[in-house]
């Protein structure tokens, strides 16, 4: 092809692109009277969007779909999820594939407004919990604060450790009809969304990497780096230990807590992981209590300490507030900071800005009338139909059972009267807010773009050099016209946010500068709860494997279902095992097909392979920050496969076979990819313990004193040692050699002896809490079992020895649990003293 032809092609492409863009613009039906991000008042695309669509339009339609698909796959594979209130399972994250674009100059103004606001709010908090001048001098009504459930009396007068109230501040903003950005609400408690913003960015910048680069979008990594460094600097020692305090895996945004912990290099902890002693907060680890210096909390203030705040809370740390009084831990944000989320305060901020900063607020907020004041109340009551009614202090409108604002215009006559009465009786509990029509942005909808209202959450982190603003943010797009009600619950989508710059941007990532880093080979401490979860993850998966092997042995054509008397007996043995494991309800001679299907995928049987894999998945959910995406993906795939109903015996067997392969690929991933620190050991300890117990039980069941060929053969299959046996003995199975291979042979990686030997290695390598210089119980038991196995002779082994071996292994498992996970599921949790004392 000549050059001229290539040029022609290029030109044709360009012409096509322009056509596509022109079509999009034509079909983009703006909502009347509402400003739009994409199209200016003149109906032409704004400069930044023009630039974006010029490049985007150059992609062929199938290429666009391919990249969108790639973004969705990334999200699915990374397991990005959230949970809406009331959900029992995680929902996949839904991302709008077009980013929100913000021009650099526009962004500068927005950042300046947010910076000023963050500074102002810090000063207001300092006064409210400190000197109290604003209230005493009438700049702030006492009632506007006293009414907030987030006004925490126990921290009044407590100087925040680390020197500040707000470490991370966020504001929800939208663009008003006048083209300016407006603050809709402040997030001062524990702002969420930064982690999701990070994921959105990772996904979109990968799917559209060329486009992303050409737009000169500043990266978000330096923001997180600054945030991390400032938290580190606030602790009172170098190399501080920092935890992200999460309510746990049932929390709506648990995924985000795990993301932040992993990305920032913090520990993901829950209240149960922490303990107060000697005026400090400590984390319970497998090596005992370790001091924790900083807590980035995602637990609301009132739940933080059952001794001084909400007594029914199980999410906090008893005694935490007292540690704050003694300056023993930095909590970000400082408990009580949430008081500034009260809408009652909004109206006072302009005057407070003049008073405390000596300047006007740079950014307006949505007009708000606090009905605690008579003039404002009268105003609201006189134009009840034009305002939205919100609670003055917390989410929800007192007396009205709904999440978002109450609009009088949507109520019937009785409802309106009730609303007006409520405001007249206790006006201080309500605010009226102007109903603002926020600007819309384009979303992709089957080859077209359509306008949708959105809310942008902007994040600010306090650093020693002032406030750092995340360039970008968390954008939520509504399907409703009133965008203020946008939460991720109701079909909303998230979008990445690109600040579009004219010049090249630096490519800082989270990799720290080398001179600041001390070389480390072991990753920090392992919280007992994480160790506990790893242990059980290992056990569930190993038990699932054993169940699948039994299913395979029972169902395979060469297996015991051949109809002879001996086979029937063997089949019964297998079935009895499955019954005692809770994999099937009862044994049956008549319907072996139904039995294998039940053991494979009955959701009602707690011991079925499906239930075990699901248990592993639940456990892994709490370990998200410690598992590689690949490992997580394998677990998800197994759970999906097993929950998909199979038709016939062949289907059952092939599902079992495939799942067994996935189990071994999980084991391979763990073996090859997991850091050999304590975490991997606990996963392996779980797996070895379970395998040792199961193998001992299999040996007892199938290598009993009078066992025949067939049962011994089954045992060899179950412990995957057929080939070793045949290559070693070239004979039909005989009792003593089979027992030796399955139980005593330390060279066979499937034998009980091999598991116990490995367990001993692990235990010896784990941190010891030696008290009084005595050998610890798990080690004592494991060494004893190993000695027994090492000195036993296969010919003299008796079934009752096998039975006591199994009992010893069960005791060992229990001892490991009690020793390393002292607050595990069976251990004692703190209890409240009860009764009217």
């Amino acid at each position: 092809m000549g050059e001229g032809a290539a040029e022609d092609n290029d030109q044709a492409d360009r012409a096509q692109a322009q056509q596509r863009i022109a079509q999009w613009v034509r079909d983009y039906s703006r909502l009347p009277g509402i400003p739009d991000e994409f199209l200016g008042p003149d109906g032409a695309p704004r400069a930044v969007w023009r630039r974006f669509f010029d490049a985007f339009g150059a992609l062929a339609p199938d290429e666009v779909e391919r990249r969108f698909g790639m973004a969705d796959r990334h999200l699915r594979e990374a397991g990005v999820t959230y949970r809406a209130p009331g959900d029992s399972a995680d929902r996949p994250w839904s991302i709008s594939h077009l980013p929100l674009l913000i021009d650099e100059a526009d962004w500068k103004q927005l950042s300046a407004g947010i910076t000023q606001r963050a500074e102002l709010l810090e000063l207001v908090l300092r006064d409210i919990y400190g000197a109290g001048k604003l209230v005493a001098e009438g700049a702030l009504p006492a009632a506007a604060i006293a009414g907030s459930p987030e006004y925490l009396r126990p921290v009044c007068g407590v100087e925040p450790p680390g020197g500040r109230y707000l470490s991370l501040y966020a504001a929800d903003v939208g663009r008003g009809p006048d083209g300016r950005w407006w603050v809709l609400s402040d997030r001062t408690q524990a702002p969420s969304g930064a982690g999701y913003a990070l994921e959105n960015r990772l996904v979109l910048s990968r799917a559209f990497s060329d486009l992303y680069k050409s737009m000169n979008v500043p990266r978000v990594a330096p923001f997180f780096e600054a945030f991390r460094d400032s938290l580190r600097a606030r602790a009172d020692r170098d190399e501080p230990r920092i935890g992200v305090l999460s309510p746990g895996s049932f929390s709506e945004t648990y995924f985000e807590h795990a993301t932040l912990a992993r990305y920032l290099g913090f520990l993901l902890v829950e209240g149960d992981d922490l303990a107060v002693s000697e005026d400090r907060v400590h984390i319970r680890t497998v090596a005992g209590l370790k001091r924790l210096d900083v807590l980035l909390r995602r637990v609301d203030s009132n739940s933080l300490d059952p001794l001084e705040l909400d007594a029914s809370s199980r999410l906090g740390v008893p005694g935490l507030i007292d540690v704050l009084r003694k300056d023993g831990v930095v909590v970000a944000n400082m408990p009580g900071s949430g008081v500034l989320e009260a809408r009652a305060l909004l109206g006072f901020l302009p005057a407070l800005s003049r008073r405390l900063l000596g300047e006007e607020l740079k950014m307006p907020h949505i007009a708000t009338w606090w009905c605690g004041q008579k003039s404002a109340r009268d105003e609201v009551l006189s134009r009840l139909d034009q305002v939205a009614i919100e609670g003055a202090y917390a989410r929800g409108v007192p007396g009205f059972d709904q999440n978002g604002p109450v609009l009088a215009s949507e109520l019937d006559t009785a409802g309106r009267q009730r609303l007006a009465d409520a405001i007249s009786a206790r006006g201080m509990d309500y605010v009226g807010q102007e109903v603002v029509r926020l600007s819309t942005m384009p979303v992709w909808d089957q080859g077209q773009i359509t306008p949708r209202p959105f809310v942008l959450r902007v994040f600010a982190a306090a650093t020693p050099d002032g406030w750092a603003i995340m360039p970008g943010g968390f954008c939520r797009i509504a399907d409703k016209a009133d965008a203020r009600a946008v939460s991720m619950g109701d079909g909303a989508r998230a979008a990445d946010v690109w600040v579009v710059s004219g010049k090249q941007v630096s490519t800082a990532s989270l990799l720290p500068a080398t001179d600041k880093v001390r070389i480390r080979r072991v990753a920090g401490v392992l919280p007992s709860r994480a160790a506990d979860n790893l242990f059980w993850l290992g056990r569930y998966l190993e038990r699932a494997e054993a169940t699948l092997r039994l299913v395979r042995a029972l169902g395979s054509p060469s297996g015991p279902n051949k109809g002879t008397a001996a086979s029937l007996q063997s089949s019964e043995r297998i079935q009895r095992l499955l019954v005692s494991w809770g994999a099937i309800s009862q044994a049956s001679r008549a319907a072996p097909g139904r039995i294998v299907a039940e053991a494979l995928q009955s959701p009602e049987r707690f011991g079925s392979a499906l239930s075990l894999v699901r248990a592993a998945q639940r456990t892994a959910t709490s370990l998200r920050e410690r598992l590689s995406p690949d490992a997580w993906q394998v677990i998800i795939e197994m759970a999906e496969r097993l929950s998909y109903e199979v038709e016939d015996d062949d289907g059952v067997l092939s599902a079992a076979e495939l799942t067994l392969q996935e189990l071994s690929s999980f084991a391979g991933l763990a073996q090859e990819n997991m850091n050999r620190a304590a975490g991997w050991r606990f996963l392996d300890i779980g797996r070895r313990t379970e395998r040792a117990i199961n193998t001992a039980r299999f040996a007892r069941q199938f290598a009993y004193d009078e066992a025949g060929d067939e049962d011994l053969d089954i045992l060899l299959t179950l412990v995957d040692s057929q080939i070793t046996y045949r290559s070693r003995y070239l004979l039909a199975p005989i009792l003593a050699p089979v027992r030796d291979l399955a139980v005593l042979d330390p060279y066979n990686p499937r034998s009980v002896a091999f598991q116990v030997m490995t367990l001993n290695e692990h235990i010896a390598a784990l941190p010891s809490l030696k008290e009084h210089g005595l050998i610890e119980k798990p080690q004592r038991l494991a060494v004893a079992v190993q000695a027994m196995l090492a000195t036993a002779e296969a010919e003299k082994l008796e079934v009752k020895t096998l039975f006591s071996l199994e009992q010893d292994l069960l005791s060992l498992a229990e001892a490991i649990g009690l020793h390393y996970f002292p607050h595990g599921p069976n251990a004692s949790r703190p209890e409240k003293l009860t009764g009217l004392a």
Partner: protein
Amino acid sequence: MIYDIRHVTTYEYESPVSFARCTLRLEPRSGGGQELISHHVEIRPRPVERHVRRDFFGTLTESVVIEAAHRHLRIDSRSRVSISREPPARDAASPPWESIRDIAFEATSLGPSSPVGYVFASPLVPVLRPVSAYAAMSFPPGAGILTGAVDLMHRIRTEFRYDPKATVISTPLDEVFDKRHGVCQDFAHVMIAGLRGLGLPAAYVSGYLRTIPPAGQPRLQGADATHAWVSLWCGAELGWVDFDPTNDLLVANDHIVLAVARDFSDVSPVDGIIVGSPKQKLGVAVDVLLVE
């Protein structure tokens, strides 16, 4: 009048408790016609840590850590107080309740005695429309604050049934209100909820009653345990006035105040967490003897 108070709290656990962290609010406060003469708390087993501070509401709060394994916990508090109060008469004149509501709301202090801290819902006392409506019947427009509150107290005393078996601490207010029964704590919470529903500043008081009534008077309800009642701010002149809805009386010299705050959750005399035994048996014995 001088009283000797003995308040013994015991916990018996089914299995050994290895750790306890408790918060004690057992020291009677001084002020409002009450003076603390002496106070002492003995704890067995002996704590490894004891320290005291005043909480936001001015209550002396002792934090205690016990690390010795134990099956019994015994907290023995002894106090001596002198009391001399002069409550207003039940039918005394007082400002209209609406003016109290408006003044309380305008307060320019967030301090513990500022009425504005007591007009909002608190952890155990939600503001509920039916309860507010119930209270409103005692407060016709322009009614004196005292007259209204006395009437409300009297109605609670006559329309609610005292029944120690009917409720526990965690029984929610709406259930107490619907079933019209409970103990002193419930009656106090209901009255507070009603008053706050009208925008009036009402606080919760925990304390004791004298055990043996003066000659010729009936024994008061709740005298063998800790007691609870209501404090209502009645304007600058009358200040905080205490109402006992369990016994339908204005508090005079038979009541000893331990703590005043928003509701029971702020003043619980013994609170804490333990590690080791989910099953526990609580015993509380209170003796209030008139010394002179």
